[in-house]
């Protein structure tokens, strides 16, 4: 699996793809492998505020529950409704499956995140 260059990554295995002032957030291929079969994704409502490094939801596989951390802060403008019926999309196509779209409040926060090469180095 490749880790696309068009986005940033966190040490907690989320990715964020910023375009303009809106960004999509998901989890990495490594994260979905660690989780195993995803059965439920709990996401915030549209309008909610998320902040960098703070939990914005949770993701559950058959065997575990994990918190999802926001790579950057902002306001939730859209939630991926498909995940309610098809949480397995997180496993089958993690880098194309965004969970929330946020309106980024401070673009400078991106500087603290990892690029693809740095993230893959972290994975070893």
């Amino acid at each position, binding site marked *: 699996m490749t880790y696309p260059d068009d986005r940033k990554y966190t040490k907690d295995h989320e990715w964020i793809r910023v375009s303009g002032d809106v960004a999509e957030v998901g989890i990495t291929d490594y994260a979905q492998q660690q989780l195993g079969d995803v059965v439920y994704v709990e996401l915030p409502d549209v309008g909610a505020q998320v902040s960098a490094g703070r939990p914005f939801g949770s993701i559950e596989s058959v065997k575990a*529950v994990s918190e999802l951390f926001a790579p950057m802060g902002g306001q939730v403008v859209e939630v991926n409704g498909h995940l309610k019926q098809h949480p397995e999309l997180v496993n089958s196509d993690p880098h194309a499956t965004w969970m929330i779209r946020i309106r980024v409040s401070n673009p400078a926060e991106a500087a603290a995140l990892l690029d693809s090469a740095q993230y893959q180095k972290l994975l070893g």
Partner: protein
Amino acid sequence: MTVANASPGRTPNVPNAPNDPNVLRKTPLNDRHHAAGARMVPFAGWEMPLEYTGITSEHMAVRTRAGLFDVSHMGEIEIAGKDALAAVQRIACSDPAQLAVGQAQYSGLLTPDGTFLDDMIVYRMAPGHFLLVVNASNVAKDYAWISEQAKAAGDAAVIDSSSRYALLALQGPASQDVLQPLTGVELAGIGAFQFAYGEVAGARVTIARTGYTGEDGFEIFVPPNMADRVWQAILEAGRRADVIPVGLGARDTLRLEAAMRLYGNDIDESTTVLEAGLGWMIGWTNERFIGRERLLQQREQGVTRRLVGFEVTDPGIARHSYRVIQDGRPVGVVTSGTQTPFLKKAIGMAYVPVALARAGSEIQIDIRGRVARAAVVPMPFYKRKV
């Protein structure tokens, strides 16, 4: 993302005397699991496969075709001698006197309080010879307890023979068709909870129609040096039926759908047989068993809490150790819970006050700070069509 509680069902991590507790023990099939790309995890002191292709696909294989499990970590304790029956009657809360040779029964190893030291399957190998299959995490404790109790019973030797057996489980509707070509034993003649001796793929084995999945299937006791041969032969014979290896992850979700209790989660030394809803396993005709008096008393007085099955009706999944709450106060605890692959529902088991134990009762569960509603439902959640 941080993974919180990844485990194939919580297990007390008990060291496996006499081995070094810091070194994980390996079954004879360990190399096979690694070669198959299994995700290996520590479980009860053993390095065991959690999953090969994924819990969901493995779970579905067992429900629709068949799956092969390495459960060689399970313990085997044998009791033999002139007074073996009396010894087993003392430590098992079922009535082993009702077992003919070649039959097995689910049973409990109880404290004098009627709570569980362990749960087990008792096999009658010969008139004066019994085999108990116990949980891996409890072997040392069980063996010490049984040895002590057997002294009072007279002529009965107790042997921990765990290292003499590898244990393979072939489970699922296609099990008999897959296994039959590999053995001269007439499998159709082995009923549920019966067993026979014979050969599978040239190995001397005991074939039992038992399991922990809620499906038809067999558990096969194999000499450790023959385990690899039997494992490979079954997978080869099952290739056309798409039989796959299955790990402990799916073993946990399968047993939960079938409402089978997991020691250390649903039952332990603090829960009685009656509270656990397992009164049916008690052999009241057995007047010898330890814990009988307390259970008779509890049957008379009634229990104050009971293990029930529930289905979460709000979004979310209730997991082990989450609280059952009523009017904002904790009144019970979830012992097992997940979203299961076949039923595709968030189900689980919980101890609740008897007032809430009736099927149809609505209970509330604290899911990481959020209150979710759940309905008490009859168990098992899944029952195979015979």
